[in-house]
């Protein structure tokens, strides 16, 4: 038992866990042929059958039940504050499964030359009253009852008057901001706290204008909207839900990582020796001092940024996104590419941090400008 717990604690380390999550994601939502082959070989599509769904949930419940046998796990997971996040884990998995289950049925039907289930339903008429209003009202009452029972069972954890000289350790954002807070580990506050949230909102607003694909309107499908779903799911599941879960369950005192069965020890120390890209290039690779000229010093970083945002979209347009480019046109494609690449900087920087201890690609603390 202890060995299993120890094993889980070990793989919960961010370096390993993030890889596992990304790899699983790539296999479940394969963007390339290579992963598609693995996807097919493993028969992942069976997950979206009813049996598969049962299996997923049984596994999740089993894992949860196993975890609850451990004191440290209980301490964190059963905290009244964290109950919604536990619910969130189950709900997200359930709705992803539900959507893909329906999509798979439709895709199978279409592959056989049929029509999706919704096609038939869309011919039907449903009355606003009683059909819609009645069930909405019932749903409202169910939610109200649920909230009341919840409030009785787990009362709000009221604390004493705040003391400005004592910060709680760990200090955590509200759960829905924990993804943003996690970004703060990898980016300068002005990027993680100001630029990215703005871009996320703008990007979400842009989606309807960029996505001209009329396939898949009004019915669940995966095959017809593969690229869109793959991209969205990556950011939604891996970069948002996953980071919120990490922030809730695995980030402990001093924002250190703790395995799910590890005691949150305030005295735990982790060596955090991070370097900037310029230091890596000049001091370690070239074995010389940093240039005094800021631009010269940060030249490697700027070069990478120019390549990343200037050349990469063009290269992608010629290769992976060839079809996409053709469909979207220059303007749409450019905006899409920039947004996409910006979003991709988060996992890239996470990898850079964990594998190479790189802190900033461009570091100009003189002007508070760090990327």
């Amino acid at each position: 038992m202890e060995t299993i717990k120890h094993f889980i604690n070990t793989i919960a380390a961010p370096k390993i866990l993030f890889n596992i999550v990304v790899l699983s994601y790539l296999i479940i939502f394969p963007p390339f042929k290579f992963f598609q082959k693995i996807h097919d070989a493993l028969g992942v599509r069976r997950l979206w059958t009813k049996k598969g769904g049962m299996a997923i949930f049984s596994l999740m419940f089993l894992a949860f039940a196993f975890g609850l046998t451990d004191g440290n796990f209980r301490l964190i997971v059963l905290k009244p504050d964290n109950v919604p996040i536990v619910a969130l884990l189950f709900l997200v998995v359930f709705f992803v499964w539900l959507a893909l289950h329906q999509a798979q049925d439709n895709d199978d039907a279409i592959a056989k030359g049929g029509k999706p289930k919704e096609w038939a339903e869309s011919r039907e008429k449903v009355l606003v009253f009683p059909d819609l209003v009645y069930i909405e009202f019932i749903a409202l009452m169910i939610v109200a009852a649920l909230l009341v029972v919840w409030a009785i069972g787990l009362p709000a954890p009221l604390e004493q008057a705040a003391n400005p000289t004592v910060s709680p350790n760990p200090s955590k954002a509200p759960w829905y901001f924990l993804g943003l807070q996690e970004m703060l580990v990898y980016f300068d506050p002005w990027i993680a706290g100001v630029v990215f949230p703005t871009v996320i909102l703008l990007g979400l607003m842009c989606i309807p204008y960029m996505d001209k694909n009329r396939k898949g309107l009004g019915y669940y499908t995966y095959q017809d909207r593969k690229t869109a779903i793959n991209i969205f799911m990556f950011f939604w599941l891996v970069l948002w839900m996953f980071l919120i879960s990490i922030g809730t369950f695995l980030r402990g005192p001093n924002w250190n990582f703790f395995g799910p069965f590890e005691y949150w020890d305030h005295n735990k120390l982790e060596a955090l020796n991070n370097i900037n890209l310029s230091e890596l290039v000049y001091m370690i690779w070239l074995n010389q001092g940093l240039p005094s000229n800021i631009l010269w010093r940060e030249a490697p970083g700027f070069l990478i940024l120019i390549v990343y945002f200037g050349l990469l979209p063009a290269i992608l347009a010629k290769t992976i996104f060839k079809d996409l480019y053709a469909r979207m046109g220059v303007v749409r494609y450019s905006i899409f590419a920039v947004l996409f690449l910006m979003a991709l900087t988060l996992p890239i920087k996470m990898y850079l941090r964990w594998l190479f201890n790189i802190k900033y690609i461009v570091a100009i603390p003189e002007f508070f400008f760090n990327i």
Partner: protein
Amino acid sequence: MSLPPLPPESYYDPKKLDKIFAFVAIALLLSLIALFAKDYSRPWKDYQRQFHALEIEKARVKLDQLQLDLSNNEEHQRVLKDLKAAQVNLRQQSSQQEAINRQMRAAEIIQKIHTKESQFAKAQYGALKYRYEKAVHEFSPDAAQLKSQWDALAANIENLRLSIESDDTSIKSANDALALLQKDVKELEKQRAGFAKKGEIIEHRLKKIDPMRMSAANQLADMVRDLPFLELANPNYKIRQIVLKDIPEDVNFMRAQRVDRCTTCHLGIDNPDFVNAPQPLTAHPHPELFMSKNSPHPLDQFGCTTCHRGRGRGTDFISAAHTPQDEEQKTKWEKKYGWVELHHWDQPMLPASLTQAGCFKCHENQTVIKTAEKLNLGLHLIERGGCYNCHTIKKYQGWSKSGPNLEFIASKSTKEWAYHWIDDPKSIRPNTWMPSFFHQTNTSDPLSMKRSQQEIHSIVEYLFANSKPFALDSAVPSGDAKKGKELAASLGCLACHNVGAQPGLDEGPQGRGGHAEPVRTRDSLRREFGPSLVGLGSKTTLNWLYQWLKDPTKYHPDTRMPSLRLSDQEAADIAAYLIQDKSPIVDKPIPVVDDKVLDGIVLDFLKKSSMVSESESKVKKMSRQDKLVFAGKRLIREYGCYGCHQIPGFENEKPVGTELTEEGSKDVERLDFGFVNIEHNKEAWFKQKLMNPRIFDQGRVLEPLDKAKMPNFDFTPQEAEVITTALMGFVKDRPSPSKMADQGVKAAFINEGAKTIRQLNCQACHIIDGEGGGIQSTVTDKSFSPPNLFAEGQKVQPQWLFEFLHAPTPIRPWLQVRMPTYNFHASQINSIIKYFNYLDNQEFPFTDIYHPLLSSEELTAAQKMFSKDYFDCTHCHIVGNKLPAGTPDNWAPNFALAAKRLKPEWIVKWITNPQDFLSGTKMPTYYDPKNFDASAPGDILGGDAKRQIRVLRDYLLTISEHPLQVKQAVSAPEKAEDKTLDIHAR
């Protein structure tokens, strides 16, 4: 593919939806009911119900008891009987009463008519006056007529007034007649009411709370007033709170008014009837001090959390932040109340064992906080241990250093002794207050032990290398140790010092490392005030000791050791006695200086401020002596030795320890518990730290300079707990000045004086304010011990006291114990004078100039009373240089001192009843306090006791050192002539 047919009506089956709706609606209703039920059912309501029932029961019992008492009370029965008889009697005279009543009613009616008429007339009078004035102004011909009308009206009003007055008289006389008739009944009725009063109050209360005695309407209201929803009007069961604006709560950079809801459950806390009621309904265990209306801390003025802390707004067991005092109580509470620690509350309730910590924040300025014995002992231990030397504590600012002066150590001791002493002071002197710095739990591994040896060498070397020269008299008269022992015991040395076993402590194990510890008390601490003198012979030389005894201030100008005005021979005798006690430990060999280890120590210090290579070359250049002195200086700074000792080179250093002024308010997060498995709260940490200051290094890998350095005082668990009590009291939040104890100038002077008295340990010898006098146990006969200073402020004149404290002259020359000469500052003497006088409510300037005035008749009377035939004063009292006849244990102070020393009013009170001042005094009580005037000798001044005492007093005040008049009156024994005493030799 054909389209499916459109559904004829709704998509879902409405019946099914209805069913679901019904089910969900019921679920929602149930959840809402649960919500209200949870909101309605509060644990405190159960307690209030219990209390309500108990209150009714107690009131009923009390009422029954009272009624029973009354029915058994003969006096009451008699009153009732008489009342009945009187009422019967009154009824018999009913015709008479009726007549008077009729008469009175008639008079009243007539008076009413007259009053009415008078009112009308007065109104007309005003109107007429105006018309008349107007007529005069306008030269109207009506003026004369109006004038006559007006005059007539005035006369009428006057008449009416007279009639009303005469009506009054007749009503009054009727009334008087009636009162006379009813007099007996009324008087008896009053007496009956007096008996019934207590019962009526209870009955009145019972009518309000007891449903059995309520009116029907109230009964109905009582039934419904606590129902859900209705309870918002005026429920029986409601949250009770006390709001205290002037004892605010500290909420981090802000102060909020304190709101205590404790009485919501602790309902009987201020009610003595509930002493034996179960928790939480019971009364406060000390109603004379707390909660009751007449106590110094009434409930509505001080609340509960002011002293006990905790969360005043909490209304259940857990949210009030109750704290169990031990494991046993904790398990009990967990079982009974489901107790868990309330996180997120910085000031949980003090466990019952530490409650006295709550006193400190208002009583900070007092030296002794009456009845807070645990806190007092804690503060006294802090004083004696000298905690304030290393840890700044505001209360102890300006107190002198606890340890001896080391500026001239080379003239006093040897390096060998110093090495052994620093190494392990308790091996030489098991009862010393010098704490142990070495051989501690974090320095007991072989490597640390080696390092410790070199550290001690360094410290010793620094002390001796920097010791200033001090010249000692080489010629010491040869002393007699046996005589010295007697002198040490009789002169009073043992009041502060002990030679041998611990003072006041019963035979316990020597050394305080073990478990079966003797218990320290404040009395024993006073007797440990000076250093223990065990093993003194190894510490110092005869010469030094002789010089020190002769004049301590010569060696150490700021010492608290007073001079006992020893003669050369006395000093030599005592020195010879004390020097005999030698410690075998000092003869043990000392480890050699190990250069390698020493280099390591020096390097550790050097590397802190300079480069490694530089440090290493520096070490190479240093001689062994240089290294020792260098390391010694740094180590003294590390360990903070200069906190308690004067050490050259450390005159302006800041103390090494954490400031403790607000330690009781510290966040528990700021305490490092390391790997020590104890409760994570302040009190547990303090206690652990006090018992073993190095414990929190346990299991840590630390560089020598990073280790905990607090020395070990070997406190017992009990001592650690009392000190923790004091520490927990050192808090940040303060009440507003109106709630501080001791307001006003007088109290400030009393506190100041008490502090001086504590600092000089006066109470080791004297009983002051009912406390002290521990020396008595070393004095063979109680009559030879230093005087009890009860009512000293009433007794002595301030000028005399000033001179006496400045340079004591014996009052009781027969005493062996000597009042020492202190190296007082004038302000200290004044503070003591003010202390005594304000303590006895004397008004500044504490004395009136008084001239005794005696007529010749009075003088003769006084002399007569003074003589053998009457009071025979000289039987015990010394007069001038004439000694009384008996043995010294019956002697009393010299009358010649009275005029200068005693306050005239005091002499009167003293002669009137000496037992009032000093119960058990040998001074006879000449006037029986119960039978004052009759007990006076009848043949003097007409037997007027008051006058006799005044005359006696005035006569005493005329006695000078050569009492000429006394000689005529006193027929002293002839031998007394020989018994003159050279008072001034002492």
